[in-house]
């Protein structure tokens, strides 16, 4: 059970204890004194009055005996000297009132008859009845009535006691207020120190020892405790510092981790955005590929149409000319022939362009970049196109020869310029002008621009201008064209490391320009160039010891084409086989210097045949060139992996085929020398 917690300060408690003690002591002492005094008063007064009555009895006994009330009255009058006695009386033996005495101011009546002997207290008065004997005989009774001041005394004492108590309490309070400091000051000093320790966390504080009593012992114990606490506090501080250090280290480590995380997030974000970008590019590429695919399909259908149109003219007029029994007038024949030739030319151009584009698309186009004098090429183009321009009444203005030369493939540059110029002629108005300019741009470029005075192009037309397989001017209908000329042109320019562009507005004509890298070394003259590009000297035809070429091909048309090409070379003999089996036998039998092998053969494929040939020691040295319509780069890679010497795609490029054959024979010669 917890002791009841008392409030108030120690000082108040001490003062309270002193005051309470004083009060109790005083009350007990005063009470005892007053009680004793009252008792003494009571006894002495009662005894006094009893004695007085006795004395009166003795002095008045004679008077009673001899019936002398006068004498008795005189005796009673002695009581005047006792003012406390209010009245007195004598009764004779028969109980009759014999003599009386009354204090001056008393009016109380006497009892009618004497009462029993004794002392009584009645209404703050003392009544005494004492019998009087004379010579052993009752002669009468003395009656005394006196003040009984006990209650007055009690009142007085109470008043005195209150005053004494008050004075004593005040004195005790003042004294204890002074004396309690002896006790409380050391204790309060400890309390102050303890409070300061708690508030300021200063465990080095010590209480001052002021006495050698129990409080002194308490101070010593407190100081010992404080020393212990200080030691513990120091230990705790050290431990806390250690913990704080660890915490800060951990925080630093955590911050490092967070920083790394942020970096990681940043990197992830970067990678994500890169991925998104590449996804977008992929999607774009996919879209572009799909678009190109669609365009390719459309192109194929339109190309079919374009190819049939001139063929229709050729075949139609041809039939008219070959009708038996009909004799046409010479003018008519000439006209028909003109139509056939014109359509044939157109068809030829068309096929050439398609081939070019195909070569470009399949990355088979070989360029020989070299310094080319622009003015020379322009001059060639001018001589070629002058007739067409004149036919339409156009003026062609060419720049003066400045001697500028560019890094380009001469043939392809000429093709590019011809395309641009012919477009300028084709899409110009009647009697318009074609202006060609050539000037250096930036620090190492040369710009050649071709401006016409035609209808110009709308922005959407410009946007679609260089898209592959997009035909321009189709809606016009009046101009013939494959619609792929500009596409080929653009590809060629880009292959030569240049740029192409157009500046146009509806109604103000078009200006097509190309920029090519300027050649720093002076270009060779046109004459030199012509020499260098001269064809390889032809071998004498019909040479018996000429190298042998074997061509394995099931398509007669292709076989015929290659026969013509070989015949045109004139330095080769040729064998042919319609399938792989026969081809292998021929190869074993004749040991050709080079073999051309179709891949898609009936029965045994060209690839398998090649494997068989390489497995045979007799034929393993013979280089085998794949000649196939499988023109994709993947196909080429497969062929090379399968051990083919080279991969030549159909339609056959004569120059490429010749180059491949030459390379194969050179390799063959080199290996045979070993």
């Amino acid at each position: 059970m917890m002791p009841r917690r008392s409030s108030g300060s120690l000082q108040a408690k001490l003062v309270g204890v002193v005051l309470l003690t004083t009060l109790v002591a005083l009350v007990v002492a005063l009470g005892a004194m007053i009680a004793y005094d009252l008792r003494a008063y009571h006894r002495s007064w009662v005894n006094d009055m009893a004695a007085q009555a006795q004395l009166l009895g003795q002095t008045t006994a004679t008077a009673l005996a001899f019936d002398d009330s006068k004498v008795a009255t005189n005796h009673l009058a002695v009581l005047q000297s006792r003012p406390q006695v209010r009245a007195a009386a004598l009764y004779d033996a028969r109980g009759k009132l014999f003599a009386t005495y009354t204090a001056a101011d008393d009016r109380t009546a006497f009892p009618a008859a004497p009462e029993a002997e004794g002392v009584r207290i009645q209404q703050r008065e003392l009544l005494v009845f004492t019998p009087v004997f004379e010579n052993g005989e009752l002669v009468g009774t003395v009656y005394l009535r006196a003040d009984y001041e006990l209650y007055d005394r009690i009142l007085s004492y109470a008043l005195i006691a209150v005053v004494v108590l008050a004075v004593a309490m005040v004195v005790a309070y003042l004294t204890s207020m002074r004396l309690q400091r002896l006790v409380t000051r050391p204790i309060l000093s400890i309390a102050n120190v303890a409070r300061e320790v708690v508030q300021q966390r200063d465990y080095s504080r010590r209480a001052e020892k002021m006495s050698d009593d129990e409080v002194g012992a308490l101070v010593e114990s407190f100081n010992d405790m404080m020393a212990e606490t200080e030691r513990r506090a120091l230990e705790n501080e050290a431990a806390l510092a250690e913990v704080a250090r660890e915490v800060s280290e951990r925080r630093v480590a955590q911050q490092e981790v967070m920083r790394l995380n942020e970096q990681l997030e940043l990197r992830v974000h970067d990678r994500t955005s890169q991925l998104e970008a590449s996804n977008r590019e992929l999607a774009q590429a996919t879209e572009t590929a799909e678009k190109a695919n669609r365009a390719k399909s459309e192109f194929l259908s339109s190309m079919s149409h374009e190819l049939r149109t001139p063929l229709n003219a050729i075949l139609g007029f041809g039939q008219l000319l070959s009708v038996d029994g009909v004799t046409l007038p010479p003018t008519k024949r000439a006209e028909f022939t003109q139509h056939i030739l014109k359509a044939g030319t157109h068809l030829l151009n068309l096929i050439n362009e398609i081939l070019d584009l195909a070569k470009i698309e399949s990355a088979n186009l070989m360029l020989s970049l070299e310094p080319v004098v622009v003015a020379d090429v322009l001059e060639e183009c001018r001589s070629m196109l002058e007739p067409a321009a004149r036919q339409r009444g156009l003026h062609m203005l060419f720049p003066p020869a400045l001697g500028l030369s560019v890094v380009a493939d001469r043939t392809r540059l000429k093709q590019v310029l011809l395309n641009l110029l012919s477009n300028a002629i084709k899409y110009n108005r009647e009697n318009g002008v074609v202006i060609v300019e050539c000037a250096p741009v930036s620090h190492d470029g040369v710009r050649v621009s071709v401006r016409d005075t035609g209808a110009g192009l709308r922005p959407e037309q410009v946007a679609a201008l260089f898209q592959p397989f997009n035909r321009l001017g189709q809606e016009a209908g009046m101009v013939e064209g494959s619609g792929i000329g500009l596409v080929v042109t653009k590809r060629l320019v880009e292959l030569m490391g240049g740029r192409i562009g157009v500046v146009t507005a509806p109604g103000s004509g078009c200006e097509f320009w190309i920029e090519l890298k300027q050649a720093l070394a002076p270009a060779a003259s046109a004459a030199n160039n012509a020499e260098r590009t001269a064809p390889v000297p032809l071998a004498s035809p019909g040479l018996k010891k000429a190298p042998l070429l074997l061509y394995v091909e099931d398509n007669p048309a292709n076989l015929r084409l290659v026969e013509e090409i070989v015949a045109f070379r004139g330095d080769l003999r040729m064998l042919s086989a319609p399938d792989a089996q026969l081809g292998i036998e021929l190869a074993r039998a004749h040991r050709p210097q080079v073999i051309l092998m179709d891949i898609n053969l009936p029965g045994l494929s060209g690839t398998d045949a090649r494997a068989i040939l390489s497995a045979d020691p007799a034929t393993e040295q013979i280089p085998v060139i794949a000649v196939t319509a499988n023109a994709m780069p993947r196909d080429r890679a497969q062929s090379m992996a399968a051990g083919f010497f080279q991969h030549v795609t159909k339609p056959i490029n004569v120059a490429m085929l010749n180059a491949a054959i030459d390379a194969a024979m050179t390799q063959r010669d080199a290996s045979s020398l070993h």
Partner: protein
Amino acid sequence: MNRRGVVGTFWRAAFICILWPAAVCSAEIERVAQEEQVKAAYLYKFLGFVDWPASAFDGAQSPFVIGVSGTDALADELAPMVANRSTNGRPIVARKISAGASLAGVHVLFIGRQAAARTAALITAARDLPILIVTDSEEAFAIGGAINFVLVDNKVRFDVSLRANEGNGLKISSRLLGVARRIQGAAP
């Protein structure tokens, strides 16, 4: 003489009764009887206030003797009154003193009015004896009585003469003197 005195008093009372209305008459008779009774009682009470010399008694237990002369009525009242009483340890005897009788052994001698003729003789005979002489008249008191009854306001009082007991060894208590009406022979 004693009888005559008493009778005389009685007759006087009776004579008054004859002259006065009946009520007054009976009251007078009553008063006279009471007076005799009171005097008898006083005689007895005097014993306590007077010191006698030891020679006055035969022994320690010897009684007080109260001699009454000149009134039989008083003697008759006194005899039963003192019959069972004692003072200072001594019994009390009441004795009628007839003419010529010896006063030896008497401590108190009451001389009534009817013994007026013998008063002088009685006083003379008793004077040198340790006898308290109580008289009932001024004349007798003047001859040599120590205590004399007087009637004051119908109450029995008494005078004391200190000279009467000079030489006979009696001492009257001052307390008795305190209630006496008059004291003769006191020092001035």
